[in-house]
């Protein structure tokens, strides 16, 4: 019995250690990684799709589908990059509002909506510009739903 207790305690200790061991560098790395996902994958893909929708770029079904699939690949990873202590004000470069942690389930649900909406837009590309446009606009509504509550912009 005592042995069991010791093992439990050891594991508890380990768990506490692991929690504490999220160092400042780890937090900063999480912020950087999630921002890079947005800035280097999501934003350029959204811009590419959007410019086709807007008619700035000619519509290309393959390119559009690829861009949307790239976005769809982000959310699963993205939601793992929000350790506590990385809200706006607590750490450099974070634009995440404290609400992310207050209702993390909803935050995550919106991220999963983005995954679905972008996959749908990718599928819609083959059916022509009109179908793609509708699906793309549905997707950017999801972007806005999240930004409205969970992002507090640092810069323009």
């Amino acid at each position, binding site marked *: 019995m005592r042995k069991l207790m010791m093992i439990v305690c050891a594991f508890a200790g380990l768990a506490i250690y692991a929690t504490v061991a999220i160092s400042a560098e780890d937090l900063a790395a999480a912020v950087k990684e999630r921002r890079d996902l947005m800035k280097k994958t999501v934003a350029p893909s959204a811009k590419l799709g959007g410019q086709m929708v807007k008619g700035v770029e000619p519509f290309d079904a393959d390119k559009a589908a690829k861009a949307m699939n790239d976005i769809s690949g982000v959310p699963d990873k993205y939601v793992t990059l929000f350790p506590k202590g990385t809200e706006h004000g607590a750490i450099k470069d974070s634009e995440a509002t404290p609400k992310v942690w207050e209702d993390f389930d909803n935050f995550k649900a919106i991220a999963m909506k983005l995954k679905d909406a972008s996959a749908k837009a990718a599928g819609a590309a083959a059916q022509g510009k009109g179908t793609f446009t509708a699906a793309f606009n549905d997707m950017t509504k999801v972007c806005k739903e999240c930004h409205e509550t969970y992002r*507090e912009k640092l810069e323009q």
Partner: protein
Amino acid sequence: MPRAGWWALVVIGIAGAIGFFLLTIPKTIPASALPAHTPDLANGEYMFTAGGCAECHAVPLSKCKDTKTKDKHVLAGGRCMKTEFGIFNVPNISPDKDTGIGKWSTLDFVNAMKRGIAPGGEHLYPAFPYASYQHMTYADLIDLKAYLDTLPAVKNEVPPHDLTFPYNIRRAVGLWQLLYVDGKTLKPDPKLSAELNRGAYLVEGPGHCGECHSPRNFLGGVMQSEAFAGARNPEGRGRIPNITPSDDGIGDWSADDIAYMLETGNTPDFDVIGGNMAPVQENMAKLKPEDRATIAAFLKALPPRPDAVPKSAKKKKKSDQDSDADQGESGGEDGEGGAQKPDGSE
């Protein structure tokens, strides 16, 4: 101090009190100013959307600080806005007779919108953006009142504002009104096209864009010389963008880009807008396309201005490029700025 000195102080004090009283006498619009006008409910609803009434007055989703609402047509108030002046509890403007504005006449409503004066001569705080709404035409205001009367009456007693001294002296709002409120409808500029005039009206009147996008002086008045050049976020951290056509602002956006953003929420880079602009944009999306185009044209015609509020992000961008190990800035977002930038964050 000699006795004569004391007397002088007393006299000055009394004169000051009388002066304060006289200067802050509520100024209202007489009934004779109201034109005969048959209300147009469709236009009233349009003004309701353009004016964003629901964004503050609709019942918040659950907690008072929620910016999301249950139903945009239930204007029973209850939202709380935490600002540097204290907490504003947004009033009930549903047509409920006891707790809303169901007893207000059209003239009462016009006086609130154009003069910031409630029935009984009570000064309204300019968190209610009547410094913009005052520019609206009587016809639009009469239509809006008629439309508000058709919305559900809901009993909801909202607690009074919880402001710090001296802002809790309601009468003093009268002094502010002397400076910033004259109740005059925005006159079309004959030198400008009908399109630009309509854009100016929508932006400076119902749209009240400058209430957030223009910087304020220490009195809380909009600085016209820097209008639309961006400002501090009145609720929370960060800054509200400069929307003049300058390098700091949106000089690289075409008029179509602006209209498209108002319609879809997508910036030219397809960075989707958020924060308090999200519900505003959703209202703008409901306007007629030609009205969005006039807003875009008006913004493009503004004098280009540098940022009114120093952009901490500039430093940030530089440090990004230097791929930095510079830490001095962490958490420094709201420490920036001088006397005009008291920390309004929670």
